[in-house]
């Protein structure tokens, strides 16, 4: 990367922080409405332990939601694309499930998985799984007709055709689906915690956000939001790097 590529956004960040600080202190905005960057920093230091534990909890929940959405979403797309009939039967239900809001079903997950990790991971899964299904199904359908002709010509078996043609054709699509899913998994986990996160020892970021909100600790809320974003960014970055490594030298040419 050229220096300008990372210097510019950092410069902008510094400028915005400065302006923010000056405006908030200059206009004497109450701390519980909009805290200054220094207040947020102070809150982050003061609640450092809780925020770290919260980040770990939420990250683990998101990871579980992401991993299960990657596996189950890909498997679902695979089954869906095996035949025209299967696809026509499954697509409406996939669409229907996609329109069910997480906040509405999260209480159900509490019934099924109890409060805590299981139900939060389930919320994360529900939000992350559809981009995976969509991308994997689009990828599996996107095989070049002439590539397929080659496999027909050489009398490849279904299995050979899947592993040597359909799976690699779908890989770049799946990679972009997984990238979207990684960010969404964190959002799903935080929403899940609003409904069913645990309150004792290892509260997640969503739980911290909620209790800080009740106590008007706005600075802590800002710090927790920042931790959510960083967790999402880290997941997105890791998935992007993983996908790039997996697609290898071919990624330059892949969509």
């Amino acid at each position, binding site marked *: 990367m050229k220096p300008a590529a990372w210097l510019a956004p950092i410069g902008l960040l510094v400028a915005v922080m400065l302006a923010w600080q000056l405006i908030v202190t200059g206009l004497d905005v109450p701390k519980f409405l909009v805290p200054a960057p220094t207040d947020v920093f102070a809150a982050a230091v003061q609640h450092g332990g809780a925020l770290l534990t919260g980040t770990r909890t939420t990250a683990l929940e998101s990871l579980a939601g992401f991993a299960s959405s990657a596996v189950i979403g890909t498997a679902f797309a695979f089954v869906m694309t095996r035949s025209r009939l299967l696809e026509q039967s499954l697509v409406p239900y996939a669409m229907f499930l996609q329109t069910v809001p997480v906040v509405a079903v999260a209480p159900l997950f509490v019934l099924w998985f109890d409060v805590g990790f299981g139900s939060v991971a389930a919320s994360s899964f529900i939000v992350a799984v559809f981009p995976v299904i969509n991308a994997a199904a689009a990828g599996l359908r996107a095989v*070049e007709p*002439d*590539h397929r*002709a*080659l*496999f*027909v*010509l*050489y*009398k*490849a078996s279904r299995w*050979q055709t899947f592993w*040597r*043609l359909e799976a*690699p054709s779908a*890989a770049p699509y799946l990679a972009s689906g997984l990238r979207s899913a990684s960010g969404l998994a964190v959002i799903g986990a935080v929403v899940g915690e609003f409904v069913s996160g645990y309150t004792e020892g290892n509260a997640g970021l969503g739980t911290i956000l909620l209790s800080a909100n009740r106590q008007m600790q706005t600075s802590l809320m800002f710090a927790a939001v920042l931790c959510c974003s960083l967790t999402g960014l880290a997941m997105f970055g890791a998935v992007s790097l993983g996908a790039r490594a997996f*697609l290898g*030298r*071919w990624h*330059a*040419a*892949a969509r």
Partner: protein
Amino acid sequence: MQALPSRNIANGPMDAAPHMRLSRVSLVFPTGTKALTDVDLVVEHGQFVAIVGPSGCGKSTLLRVIAGLETASSGTVDAPTRGVAFVFQDANLLPWRTIRANVALPLELAGDHTAGARVEDALRRVGLDGFFDQYPHELSGGMRMRASLARALVTRPRVMLLDEPFGALDEITRYRLQDDLLTLHAELGFTALFVTHSVFEAAYLADRVVVMSGRPGRVVGDLPIHLDRPRSASLRTDPAFGPVVQSVTDVLRAELT
């Protein structure tokens, strides 16, 4: 009365019998497009046949029918079902495989995983020494087409079906590949069906030029090319070459108007 579509298996050279025989082959796509009507074509072992015709007349469809990738609506197709290779217009390599792995694919699909030497031999034959581990997007169009030829040759096919393989290449590269294809044909003795838009290319390469009508495609001309083999680059400027090209052009023009 129309014959029911059928496909007879004619594997292995039986010297007397032709290598392939199409009788009254017609094809209507599900969309209603009539791509071929009553195509008759007999090709002898080792013959190099060029197919020319206006765009959209069914040349690719004809090759796909012969390859078994498309089924005729009526008529009979007597063609080998094994030992057939197809070369597509754009090299049609798998972008996620190296050149070596692309060329190895047909052997792999046949369950032959110990074919490294044959793969390298095929790549050397087409002049791709030293590019074994590159990816397709890292090569020029001409080199990709060479890799595509190597992939076709690696199974030692008896029939090569080539669908405008050099159409997208610049003139110098095309000339070079034409000459290499002639050398390979002379060495390996496969039967070749070569679709092209270029009358010049057809006359230079082929023993016979088959001219197809506009859609739905029929065979409207079948001209033997009486030029000695081996043919080489000097033929392109030989005084004897012009009239041959002219005779093919005349038949094609009569069809186009």
